[in-house]
C-alpha cells in the first residue's frame, strides 16, 4: 500500500479537496497507534466512478489527548467509523456531533487498541450490572484561537418525555444482538439511536497476539454467512504480502466456494426477510434449499457454518470426487425453486405494498454511507468488488452486476434473489473446468510477513469486506483491521429508519441484511 501522510494542519483542506476531486467513497478509517511516532488514522478513499484508490494518513504527536479534525461532514459513514476510532484509540474528532463509544461500555476505562493499554482486570473488572444509557452526547469543536478544542456542549439524544421503545438486544427481528432505541409517536419513529457492541469480542486486539494461521480462524466468526469470502480476503492479503502465488485449481475452488456461500447468504436473507414480514412458510422454503448448500459445503469443508476451508497458500482439503455433480444438480434445482419464491413471497401484493418505497436510500447517500453490496446496488451504485477490482477468477467469468435504481427495501430483496441466479451462472461456468493441480502450496511452518502495510478486499455476501495489515516483520501483525460490511449499513439504517413506522423498521432491517458479529467484531 502506498499511504500518503498529510500534515494535521492541512488535513481538512486536503480531504475536502479529495472529495471535490471525486473521492466520494470512504472505504475505511483505520485508527493507528505508531507508538513514539504518534497516534492517528489511515483513511482509504475511492472514486466511485473511476475506482481509483487513495490512501492517506494523519497523525498527532499528542498521545495524552489525541485530537484530529473530523471528516464526518464530508463522508457520512465517518460518523460511526470515527466513533469506533474514538472507542479503540481515544482519538477525539473535532466537530464530530456525537462522540460516544461505539462498542465498549461507556464506563470502560482506557482505549484497548492503544499499545500502552493496560488490560489488567483491576482497571476494568467484569461488571455484572448493566450500563446506564448515555442520554447526552459530547461534541468537540475547533475553536479559532487554540487548535485544541474543549468539550463544548452536551446534546440530548433521547429526552425523558419521549415515548421510548427499546428494540433489542434480544429481539426476534434484529438478527442478533443489536439494540435500537426508538422514540415513537404512535407508530411513527421520530428518532433512532443504535447501540452496537453486544457481541464485541475484540477480535482485532486478539489478532495482534496471534500468529497468522491462528488469525484465520477468526474470520469465519465475523460474518458467519460470508465465512469463505472473509477468509479468502485474509488469505489473499497474507499471500500478497508473502509474494505467494496460489495455483489455478485453488482459484477455481475458492471462487466456487465463495459463490456457494453467497447463495447460502442470500437464501438466508430471503428467508429471514420473509419471517420478519410474517411469512413463515416462505422462510422454511428458503431454509430447505439452504440446507442443500450447507450439505454440499459440509461434504467438502467439514463445516456447515464455520467452514475453516481457505488456508494460506491454498485450501484445507481437495474437493471431493462427486462435488461437481452435486453442485450441478443443486444449481438446477435451485433455479426451479427461485420461481417458487417469486410466486409465494416476492410477487405477493402484501409484500409489495409493505416493501416498495419503504426505506429509500438514495444513490448519493449510499455512496456517502459506503453502503456496498446488495444495499448499494439496489440504490443504483455499481459497487461490486468483483467488477471494480477483480480478484480470483472474477475477471474470467461472465456475470451481470445486478443494479436496481429504486433503493427501497423491495429492490434490495430483488437484488439478492437475482444475484443468486448470477452466482449459479458463475458456478456453472467454472464447475466443469476445474484444472488439475495442487490444492495448496507448501508454506513454511512459521509465517512471517515482511514489513509494510497490506490490504485486500473481496465482495462478501453483503458488501465489501476488507483486510488491512500493518506488519513489522513479525509472525503476528502490528495492527490488523477488518473492514466490516455491516457498519455502513447500520449508519445508513439510522437515516432511513426515521419517519418510518415500527413495522417498517423491521422491513428495513431485514432488507439491509446486516450480520451483527461482523459489525461488532
Amino acid at each position: 500500500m502506498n499511504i500518503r501522510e498529510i500534515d494535521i494542519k492541512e488535513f481538512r483542506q486536503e480531504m475536502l479537496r479529495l472529495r471535490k476531486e471525486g473521492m466520494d467513497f470512504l472505504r475505511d478509517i483505520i485508527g493507528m497507534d505508531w507508538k513514539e511516532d504518534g497516534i492517528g488514522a489511515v483513511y482509504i478513499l475511492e472514486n466511485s466512478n473511476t475506482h481509483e484508490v487513495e490512501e492517506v494518513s494523519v497523525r498527532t504527536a499528542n498521545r495524552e489527548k489525541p485530537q484530529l479534525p473530523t471528516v464526518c461532514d464530508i463522508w457520512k459513514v465517518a460518523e460511526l467509523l470515527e466513533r469506533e476510532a474514538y472507542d479503540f484509540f481515544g482519538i477525539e474528532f473535532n466537530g464530530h456531533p456525537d462522540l460516544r463509544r461505539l462498542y465498549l461500555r461507556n464506563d470502560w476505562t482506557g482505549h484497548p487498541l492503544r499499545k500502552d493499554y493496560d488490560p489488567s482486570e483491576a482497571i476494568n473488572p467484569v461488571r455484572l450490572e448493566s450500563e446506564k444509557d448515555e442520554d447526552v452526547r459530547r461534541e468537540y469543536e475547533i475553536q479559532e484561537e487554540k487548535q485544541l478544542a474543549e468539550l463544548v456542549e452536551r446534546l440530548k439524544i433521547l429526552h425523558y418525555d419521549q415515548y421510548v421503545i427499546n428494540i433489542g438486544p434480544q429481539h426476534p427481528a434484529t438478527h442478533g444482538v443489536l439494540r435500537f432505541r426508538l422514540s415513537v409517536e404512535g407508530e411513527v419513529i421520530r428518532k433512532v439511536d443504535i447501540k452496537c457492541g453486544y457481541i464485541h469480542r475484540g477480535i482485532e486486539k486478539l489478532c495482534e497476539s496471534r500468529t497468522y494461521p491462528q488469525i484465520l480462524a477468526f474470520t469465519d466468526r465475523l460474518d458467519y454467512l460470508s465465512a469463505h469470502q472473509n477468509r479468502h480476503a485474509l488469505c489473499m492479503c497474507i499471500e500478497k504480502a508473502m509474494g505467494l502465488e496460489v495455483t489455478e485449481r485453488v482459484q477455481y475452488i475458492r471462487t466456487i466456494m465463495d459463490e456457494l456461500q453467497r447463495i447460502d447468504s442470500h437464501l438466508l436473507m430471503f428467508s429471514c426477510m420473509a419471517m420478519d414480514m410474517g411469512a413463515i412458510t416462505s422462510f422454511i422454503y428458503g431454509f430447505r434449499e439452504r440446507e442443500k448448500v450447507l450439505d454440499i459445503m459440509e461434504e467438502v469443508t467439514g463445516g456447515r457454518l464455520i467452514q475453516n476451508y481457505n488456508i494460506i497458500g491454498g485450501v484445507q482439503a481437495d474437493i471431493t470426487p462427486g462435488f461437481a455433480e452435486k453442485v450441478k444438480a443443486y444449481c438446477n434445482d435451485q433455479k426451479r425453486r427461485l420461481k417458487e419464491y417469486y410466486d409465494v413471497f416476492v410477487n405477493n401484493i402484501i409484500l409489495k405494498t409493505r416493501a416498495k418505497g419503504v426505506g429509500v436510500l438514495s444513490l448519493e447517500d449510499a455512496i456517502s454511507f459506503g453502503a456496498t453490496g446488495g444495499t448499494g446496488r439496489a440504490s443504483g451504485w455499481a459497487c461490486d468488488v468483483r467488477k471494480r477490482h477483480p480478484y480470483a477468477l472474477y475477471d474470467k467469468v461472465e456475470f451481470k452486476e445486478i443494479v436496481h435504481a429504486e433503493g427501497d427495501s423491495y429492490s434490495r430483496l430483488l437484488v439478492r434473489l437475482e444475484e443468486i441466479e448470477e452466482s449459479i451462472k458463475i458456478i456453472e461456468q467454472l464447475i466443469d473446468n476445474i484444472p488439475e493441480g495442487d490444492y495448496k502450496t507448501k508454506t513454511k511452518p512459521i509465517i512471517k510477513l515482511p514489513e509494510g502495510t497490506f490490504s485486500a478486499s473481496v465482495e462478501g455476501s453483503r458488501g465489501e469486506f476488507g483486510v488491512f495489515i500493518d506488519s513489522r516483520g513479525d509472525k503476528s501483525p502490528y495492527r490488523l483491521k477488518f473492514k466490516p460490511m455491516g457498519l455502513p449499513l447500520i449508519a445508513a439504517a439510522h437515516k432511513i429508519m426515521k419517519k418510518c413506522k415500527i413495522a417498517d423498521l423491521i422491513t428495513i432491517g431485514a432488507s439491509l441484511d446486516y450480520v451483527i458479529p461482523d459489525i461488532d467484531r
Partner: protein
Amino acid sequence: MKFKDTYFGGIFGAISSLLTGMGVTLREFFTRKVTEQYPENRKELHISERHRALLVMPHDENGNNKCIACGLCRQACPNGTISITTRTVTDEETGKSKKVLDTYMYDLGACMFCQLCVNSCPKGAIEFTNEFENAVFDRKKLIMKLNR
C-alpha cells in the same frame, strides 16, 4: 392509465398474486416432507467424512500411536486446548535419551475446530473424526486423555 393501475385493476392484480401464492403452498401441502427425524434416523444419517467433531489419536492394533511429543500442536492451538506431559526414556541399546509421550490431554470444551493442530503435526498422529454426539452433563468430562 393502465387497467392494473385502476382501483378494480388493483384488486384483481392483488387477488391473482395472492392466489398464485396460495397455489404454491397448496402444492407443497401434498409434496413429500423433508423433516429428518434425528435420533430415530441414526442408521441412515449421513455425516460428512470431513466433519470435525472430535479430536482423536488413532492407535494401531498393538496400542501404539504415532505421537512423538514434539508439542507443535500445543503451540499451534489458539485456545490452549492441548496439554502434553512427557517423560524421558533412555534407550538401553544406544544409550540415547528420548522424549516420549506420557499423557495427551485435549479439552473439547475449549476447542474451536480450526484444524491447526492436525495441520501442524509432522507425523499425522492426531485427526478429527465425525463422531458428533459428544454432549455431556459435566464440563470435566470434556477434558479427555487421547493416548492410551
